[in-house]
C-alpha cells in the first residue's frame, strides 16, 4: 500500500487509570479513552477509572503531548437515575474532554441539546450496525464518529463507509465481544447487576475460583459454574459468554457463546484503512499498564510503517491474549467459528 492511498488513522487507546493514560500517550496513542468511577461507563470495575480531579490532570498531560482524551459515558441510565449521566456529560465539558462516547439516546439528546459544540462519538454499546441506524444518530444528535460492532466484515465496513456522513472507528485488538453490544444481559441474569446499566460485566464480587490439589480450576459466577480448567489449560475471563458448558446433545463440554480468544486485526490494518476506517481502537481499560504499553507501541509502529509505505512489522502480542489465541473474528469472515 502506498502512503497516499489512505489518511493516517487515529490510534485510540484504553486507559483504566491515569498512569495507564500516560503510558498509552508515551507509547504513541493519538487518543485515550477513559471512564468515571461510577455506573456511567461499561468498565465500572473495582479500583479502576477516574475521579474528576484525575480527569483534569490527565487531560492536561494528554493535551500537552498533542493527543486527545475521550470520556466513555456509554451505559444506559435506568429510570430515575439520569442525573448521574447528565453529570458525566457536564464534567466532560467542564474539564475539556475532546469527545464523549455515548450509547443511550437520552444521553445523546442531552449532550447535543445542552452542548452543541461537544463532539460526540457513538459507542459500540449502541449496537448501530446499519447505515440507516448510524445516519439517524448523525442527523438527530450530530454524532461525528461511530464505533462499529465487532460483527462486520471489512467489505461490509467499506460499504457502510460509503453510506454514512460520519467517521468510523473499528476495534483492532482486545476482547472480541461478539455478543450484540449493549444488549447482553447474561451478567444481569446471573448476578442481578447489569453490564448495560451498571457498567459491570461479571461482577468481581460474584466470581469464585476454586483450585483443587491437582491444579484443576473451577470458575463460578454466582451460583453458576462457568468452566473447569485442567491443570495444564490456559484460562480465560470469568464471563458467562466465555464459559464451557455440558449438554445432553454433546459428548464434551463446549463453548456455547464465545471462546476465550483475543481479537487481533494487525494483519488487516491496510484493508481497514482502505475501507475508510478513521480510527483504530484497542480494547482493554481493565488491563494493566504493561498491556497498554506493549499493545499501543506495537500498533503505533505498525500504523506508522504502513503509512510510510513499508510492510508492517508487528510485535508478537500472543503473550497478552486470552487463552493464548488470536482471531480476526468476523472482520475476515462471518463463519470464523
Amino acid at each position, binding site marked *: 500500500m502506498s502512503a497516499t492511498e489512505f489518511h493516517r488513522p487515529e490510534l485510540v487507546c484504553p486507559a483504566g487509570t491515569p498512569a495507564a493514560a500516560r503510558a498509552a500517550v508515551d507509547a504513541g496513542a493519538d487518543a485515550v479513552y477513559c471512564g468515571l468511577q461510577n455506573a456511567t461507563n461499561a468498565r465500572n470495575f473495582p479500583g479502576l477509572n477516574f475521579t474528576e480531579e484525575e480527569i483534569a490532570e490527565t487531560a492536561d498531560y494528554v493535551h500537552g503531548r498533542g493527543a486527545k482524551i475521550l470520556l466513555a459515558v456509554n451505559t444506559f441510565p435506568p429510570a430515575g437515575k439520569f442525573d448521574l449521566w447528565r453529570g458525566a456529560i457536564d464534567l466532560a465539558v467542564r474539564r475539556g474532554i475532546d469527545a464523549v462516547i455515548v450509547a443511550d439516546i437520552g444521553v445523546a439528546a442531552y449532550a447535543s441539546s445542552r452542548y452543541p459544540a461537544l463532539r460526540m462519538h457513538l459507542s459500540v454499546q449502541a449496537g448501530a450496525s446499519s447505515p440507516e441506524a448510524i445516519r439517524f444518530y448523525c442527523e438527530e444528535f450530530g454524532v461525528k464518529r461511530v464505533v462499529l460492532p465487532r460483527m462486520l466484515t471489512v467489505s461490509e465496513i467499506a460499504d457502510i463507509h460509503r453510506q454514512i456522513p460520519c467517521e468510523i472507528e473499528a476495534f483492532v485488538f482486545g476482547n472480541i465481544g461478539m455478543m450484540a453490544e449493549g444488549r447482553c444481559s447474561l451478567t444481569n441474569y446471573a448476578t442481578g447487576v447489569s453490564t448495560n446499566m451498571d457498567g459491570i460485566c461479571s461482577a468481581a464480587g460474584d466470581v469464585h475460583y476454586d483450585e483443587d490439589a491437582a491444579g484443576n480450576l473451577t470458575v463460578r459466577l454466582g451460583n453458576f459454574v462457568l468452566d473447569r480448567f485442567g491443570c495444564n489449560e490456559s484460562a480465560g475471563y470469568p464471563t458467562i459468554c466465555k464459559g464451557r458448558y455440558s449438554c445432553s446433545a454433546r459428548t464434551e463440554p463446549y*463453548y456455547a457463546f464465545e471462546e*476465550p480468544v483475543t481479537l487481533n486485526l494487525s494483519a488487516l490494518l491496510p484493508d481497514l484503512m482502505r475501507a475508510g476506517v478513521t480510527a483504530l481502537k484497542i480494547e482493554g481499560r481493565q488491563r494493566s499498564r504493561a498491556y497498554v504499553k506493549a499493545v499501543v507501541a506495537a500498533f503505533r509502529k505498525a500504523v506508522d510503517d504502513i503509512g510510510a509505505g513499508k510492510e508492517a512489522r508487528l510485535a508478537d502480542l500472543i503473550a497478552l491474549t486470552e487463552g*493464548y489465541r488470536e482471531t480476526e473474528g468476523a472482520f475476515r469472515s462471518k463463519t470464523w467459528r
Partner: protein
Amino acid sequence: MAHSRPAIVSGARNAPPFLLDIPRRLLSIVPLVVLQPVLDRIATHVARSRPRLFARLGPHTDKRYLIDPVDLPFVLVLIPNSAQPFLKAFPRDGKVEYDAGIAGRFINLLTMIDASLDGDALFFTRDLRVVGDVEAVVALRNALDDCDGSIVDTITGAFGPLSGPAGLALSVVRRMTAGHRPV
C-alpha cells in the same frame, strides 16, 4: 474443546532455574524475626509515599490479603490500611487467615506490582492464582497499577542504608529474568 498450555513462555516461567531460585536462596536464610522490621518499614513507607493507592481500594482497605510467593519459604499478609498499614510474614506451613489471596512466583509478583507484567496475562497462563474475595484482589491490582514510577523502588527505598544494595540486587535479578519475558 480443551486448550493445552502453550509452549510460549509467560512471566519468568522460561527463565533458567538458577535465576528463579536466587530470591528463594537469599530469603530462605533470613529469619522472619529479622525480616519483620523491614516489612514494617516497607508498609509505612508505601503508605506515606503512595496515598492515592489507598483511595482506589475503596471498601477493601481493611481486608486481609494473603500474598503467597510460592517459591519462598514464607507467605505475607497485607492489610492496606493507610493509617495502620500491616505487612507481616508467616511461615509457609502455618495457618493464616485471609479474605483474599494472590499466589505466584516471587519474581512474577514483583514484576507485576511494578507494572512491567500484565496480571491478566499471568492469570490466563495460570502463573497467577487468585483465591477468596476476587473483588478485593481486582481492586488491589488496579490500585497498584496506577502507582507512578516503580513501586519496587519505593519498597527498596524502605531499606534505609541498605536500599542501595537491595535495589541493586533486585534490579540484577529482574534484568536477568526480563530477557526471558515476552512483555
